[in-house]
């Protein structure tokens, strides 16, 4: 049972444009959400996170938006750069004191120069 879903397996954008990656979740107990970036032959690298008490968190070119009522979050990258090309995973953790993560299946972002 996939509790975190990324329905777009791939996304291509032109350099300089906005990239929007989407993620949906089903478990209303999730209260912390993270985005990880993964290059081939490397482990996932933490990118940005958001707590359920917020609806937006920004870090440089990266912004994550959370819509709790829709159980939806998105990652915006502006402007997109070729070095952003990677697989992006959405992850969530619950409110039971544990920080084990539930991951989506990932979206492969390709930024075209």
């Amino acid at each position: 049972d996939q509790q975190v879903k990324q329905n777009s397996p791939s996304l291509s954008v032109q350099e300089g444009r906005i990239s929007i990656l989407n993620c949906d979740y089903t478990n209303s107990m999730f209260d912390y959400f993270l985005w990880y970036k993964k290059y081939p032959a490397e482990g996932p690298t933490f990118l940005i996170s958001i707590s359920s008490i917020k609806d937006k968190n920004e870090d440089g070119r990266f912004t994550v938006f959370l819509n709790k009522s829709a159980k939806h979050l998105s990652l915006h990258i502006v402007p997109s750069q070729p070095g952003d090309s990677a697989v992006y995973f959405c992850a969530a953790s619950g409110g039971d004191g544990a920080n084990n993560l539930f991951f989506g299946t990932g979206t492969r972002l390709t930024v075209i120069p």
Partner: protein
Amino acid sequence: DAGVTQSPTHLIKTRGQQVTLRCSPISGHKSVSWYQQVLGQGPQFIFQYYEKEERGRGNFPDRFSARQFPNYSSELNVNALLLGDSALYLCASSLVWGETNEKLFFGSGTQLSVL
């Protein structure tokens, strides 16, 4: 500072064999988690250890076991290997356990192939 280190990087085994994967967390981190990533899927939680005690376990059979040592390093053992155990095994460390805002830092993983 060294990040999370895992060994070996690649491993080939045959069905029925046993395998041990090793992980050293970031210095100062006391919690270690293990994840399995099958090709085309996201990482799936296997175990979490903190202060040498198991703090969480995912939906994996008893063939999977782990332990954490006094220096906070960890081993993941898989017995009676099946073809379906072929995956990238990721280790992650965090400073503590029990804080939901605690970020996990991942190693590069061990790629296990079962033939």
